[in-house]
Structures are given as structure tokens and as C-alpha cells.
């Protein structure tokens, strides 16, 4: 609602500026050659108009900036919501029925988990991550309008190109596990970032372990729709 109001404000400001300039210019034009005083006044007026227009452009820029910040804040608030929300009595809360995306953010549910971790140079899904992958497969089966993007990642060691291929294998192995459970392939997109987009920036085993990972991403739920 706030966003709409702000947008209106900007629209009015811009529109107002247009009409004002237009109506004042027309009559002056007939006299300015005859009366030097008025000519000066007109020049002053034009300068003033230019200043006002500049100020309004600046104001619009500030408003846009503010709007962007507010949207950013709203997005952040949205992302943080599950942490401040009280636990619902059942996992099938009223809201969840209305919006399946809520299921994906239910704290403690396997669906709220998104990452599969791997051993070095491995792409097999370890036993402890299978229930989570299965839960996402079940969700996708039940919600055909949802899509996922599986992003494969590797640690920084070794070859960037080999890691790019390995990251693809990691993402594809998650996709394969899901399609074997019946999820249509068209609901799943895979991408490899190899070792190019490390989540942990260190150069030690802890960082490496965090970066050997496939992320199950729901575009529009986890990230803005692309």
C-alpha cells in the first residue's frame, strides 16, 4: 500500500511540474521582446523553473531510492518472517493451505532444508541427505506449479574446469534422485557454479566442506523470480 502511495506522489509531482511550466510560458512569450524588465523576470522565472525541475528530479530520485530501500527492507522482513512467527499448532496451518510456499519455510521440516553436502571429488547423495531430497521430491509432485533450480558447487581446490563439471554432476545427481521418485524433469533445472561462487570464503577444511554443496532453490520463494 505504501509503495502505491509513494508512486502516486511521484506521479503528481511530475505531472504538476509539467502543467505549471506550460501555462506560465505562453502569455509571457508575447511581451518579452517589448519589456526588458519582464524579459529579466522571464529569465529569472525560467531559471527558477529549471531549479525547481532539478529539485523535483532530485526529489524523485530520492523517492525512488527510498522506495527501493523500503522494498529491500520489506523483502528482508519477508525473509526473516519465519524466525519471528510463533510455531503453528499443526504443520498444515490455515496459511499453508492457502500458500504452499509456507510449507517450504516451516521451521524444523525437511523442506526448510535446502543443501546437500558432499565429500571431496564426490557427487553421491549421502544417506543423511536422502530424506530431505525425498521431501522436496514429494513437495514437487504435489505442487506441479512449483519449480526448483539445483545449484552445484565445489570447494576451491584443484581445477576450476573439473570442478565446473563436478558441480554439474552434483546438481544432476539430485535431479536424478527426484526424477526417479516421479518428479517430471521439466520441474527441475540444474546449474553448476563449480568453485566460482563460494559461500564460505576461507581457505580451510571448514570452508571447503561448506562449499561442497548442492542447493535446492525455489525461484520466487528463496530468491526473486528470474
Amino acid at each position, binding site marked *: 500500500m505504501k509503495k502505491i502511495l509513494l508512486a502516486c506522489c511521484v506521479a503528481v509531482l511530475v505531472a504538476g511540474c509539467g502543467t505549471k511550466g506550460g501555462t506560465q510560458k505562453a502569455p509571457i512569450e508575447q511581451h518579452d521582446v517589448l519589456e526588458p524588465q519582464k524579459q529579466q523576470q522571464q529569465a529569472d522565472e525560467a531559471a527558477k523553473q529549471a531549479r525547481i525541475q532539478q529539485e523535483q528530479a532530485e526529489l524523485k530520485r530520492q523517492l525512488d531510492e527510498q522506495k527501493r530501500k523500503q522494498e529491500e527492507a520489506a523483502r528482508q522482513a519477508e525473509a526473516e518472517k519465519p524466525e519471528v512467527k510463533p510455531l503453528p499448532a499443526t504443520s498444515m496451518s490455515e496459511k499453508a493451505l492457502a500458500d504452499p510456499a509456507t510449507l517450504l519455510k516451516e521451521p524444523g521440516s525437511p523442506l526448510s532444508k535446502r543443501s546437500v553436502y558432499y565429500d571431496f*571429488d564426490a557427487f553421491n547423495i549421502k544417506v543423511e541427505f536422502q530424506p530431505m531430497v525425498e521431501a522436496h521430491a514429494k513437495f514437487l509432485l504435489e505442487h506441479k506449479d512449483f519449480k526448483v533450480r539445483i545449484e552445484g558447487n565445489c570447494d576451491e581446490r*584443484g581445477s*576450476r574446469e*573439473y570442478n*565446473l*563439471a563436478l558441480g*554439474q554432476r552434483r546438481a544432476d545427481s539430485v535431479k536424478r534422485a527426484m526424477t526417479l521418485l516421479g518428479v517430471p524433469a521439466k520441474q527441475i533445472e540444474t546449474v553448476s557454479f*563449480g568453485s*566460482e561462487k563460494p559461500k564460505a570464503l576461507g581457505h580451510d577444511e571448514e570452508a571447503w566442506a561448506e562449499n561442497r554443496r548442492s542447493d535446492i532453490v525455489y525461484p520466487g520463494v528463496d530468491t526473486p523470480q528470474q
Partner: protein
Amino acid sequence: MLCLGAASARAQLTIEIIGGGADQLPITVLPFASEDKYQHRISEVVSADLARSGRFRLQEIGSVRPLPSEPAEVNYRYWKNRGSQTLVIGSVAERSDGKVEVRFRMLDTSKEVQVLGYAYTIVLPQMRAIAHKIADIIYEKLTGEPGVFSTRIAYVAKMPRRFELHVSDADGFNSQFILAHREPIISPAWSPDGTRIAYVSFEQRRSIVFVHNLVDGTRRVLAAFDGINSAPCWAPDGKRLAIALSKDGISQIYLIDADGGGVTRLTTSNAIDTEPSFSPDGKSLLFTSDRGGSPQIYRMSAAGNNVERMTFEGSYNVTPRYSPDGKAFAFIQRNQGRYRLAIMDLATRQTQILTDTSLDGSPAFAPNGRMILYASIVGGHGILAAVSSDGRIKQKITASAQDVREPAWGPLVGSR
């Protein structure tokens, strides 16, 4: 986001020589007459080039004045007694049309003769280029191998908020980025004629191979199939590239025309095949594959036949790169948790580890085969380094950028 010709001082490289080869040739390069009127002094650039190669010992100039710039002024015995068989003299003079004449002579102090001498007419911005050319001529005359001082290199600089693909002179000067984006750029590869660079960009949030024309700044998509598009390597004829694609499942090696057409599959394995490297004669390819259970280096014919495993030592051998003479290949070998640059002689199958760093990657031969440029991580930062193919000469190349990586050494063609 395509940026052309924009210089970025922040990514300027600095090269520091760590080791020196044995049997260094003593040489004296005297200041060229009138060179100090100009921003770049010819004799300094020539001396730095020769010293950086590790094959010369630059002699002190001493205190005798005036210094000679013409053969008639040279006291050969004096310079011979100072320990230099070779003396380089020259001059810089501005002509009436604003152009600059650079003259240089290489003299033999024992035989008291001129070995060679040239005069060049240049415009001011070519001052460093002509100095590199002079260094190349001296290098070739004294070692019998072509010099690579006039070549260019490409590398990726990781800035705080973006990645930049840079092209610079081989000594790190004149660095300019040809592409900048917040998403990663990897695997730059020079075309054999030096006019184009293929690379992998993630600008569309996935790996896509582009071919970038350095002459006019245009670029085009080479491969954007489903899955990964990566590891471009030009065939020696410049008409095709070997490339790794996962469009048919797992990453496999394909040939593709330089215009993106004519995709032909070369490998058919149930494993990762990537990092193709053409032999200089174009008849065979080295590549990385984990078909044997761990990533190892294999060789096959350019038609994809006669696959042969090349590495057996250790469980991780990757990133093969043929040497320019085709007699050896550089690669990265894991040994006791360290990833180090190594070289294998194809005739003897002997492997030599060339570095003592632990996170090496992306080896790139100089076009004369003498040095290998590579990336490493030292103190948490990406650096470039170079080592001679016999392991004796070492250079560390640092940049003021946060990280530099993915070096590629341009060809000799077009630079001489």
C-alpha cells in the same frame, strides 16, 4: 556491461624475480642517449625484460662518463674488463615531424664489433613496445630462442564487487580490462593469431562460452547449450575449438567451429571429460577425465580415438597443457594434500614438480616454452606466478587487485 579499453590501475601487475637460472649471460645495457626526456626509458625496460627472463646477469654501469651511444665512442676494453661480453648502446631522438627515432646496437666487447643494430621510427606511445622488441632481438640473438617480451597475457582480476578480464603486456604494463561483470569469468584462451580470446562467463548465471574479438571489441556466444559450456581451447589452425559441454549428460569433449557451428562429439564416456589441450600439430588432445575413478590426464587423437592414460602417480592429476614444442605437458598434481604445478616429458614419461606452493592452478606456457605462468593462492590471496620449465627461475606476480587468477599467455604472432 561490456567495457572496452578502460584502464584499471588497480589491477596493475608487479613482477618480482625469486630465483635465477645458472649460466646467466652477463650483459651491460647502457642508458640510451636522451632517453630520460621520456616517461618510459628504453634501457630500463630492456634491462627489466632481460633480467626477468632469468637468463641474463645485468652488469652495473659504473661511474665512467660520458657514456657512449655510438660505436665510435665505445672503449671496448673497458667494458670487457667490467665483465660484459655484450654491450647494448643506443639513442632516442625526436624528429621534426614529432616522431621519435630509436637506435640501438648490440656490441661484442671481445671481438670489438657490432653484432647487430637497428633504427626505428615510432610515435611516443610505442616507446615501451619498441623497448620490448629490442629486448626480444637481444634475447633471440644470445639464446637462439624467440623472446616473448612483446607478447601479451590475459588474466582475471577479482575486485571487491566484480570480476574483470584483463589483457596486459607480458611485463604487466598497459593492463586494460575487456570485460567486467559481477558474475565470475574463467578460462580465457587466446586464438593462435592473438586477435580473439575465448572465455567462460557466468554473466547469465550459468557457464557460457564467448569469443571476444580484441580488434573491434565485439563478441559472440560460442556455446550456450544446456548444462555447462566450458574449457575452450583453440585448435592450432584457429578455425575450431575443443570445448567441454554437458548438453548430453556428463561433461564431454566436443569440437566446435569458431563461429559456433559444427558441433562434433569427441569423447564418449560415462565420466567427466574436460580441459582439452590441443597438441601444437593439431593431431592429438590431452584432457582430464575421471573415467578411471579419479581425475587423471589422458591423450587421444584429434578424432577422439586411441585414448591413452598419461598420469598414474597420485589420485588427482588435472589441467594438462601441451608445451609449445609438443614434447611435454604442464599439469596440476595433488601430492599429500598439495596441488602443485608439474611437467611431464612425453618421451621419458618423467614428471617433475616445479613449485612449492600448495594451491596451484591454470598453467599457461609462454609461447617460447621457457616459462609457465600459473595461478596460486598465497596468504589467502590469488596471485600469479611463473616458473621456468626446468624449475630454476621463479617469478611472483602480484596485483593491487584483491585476487588475480586464470592467466593465459598470448601467442608470438602479430607481436613481432
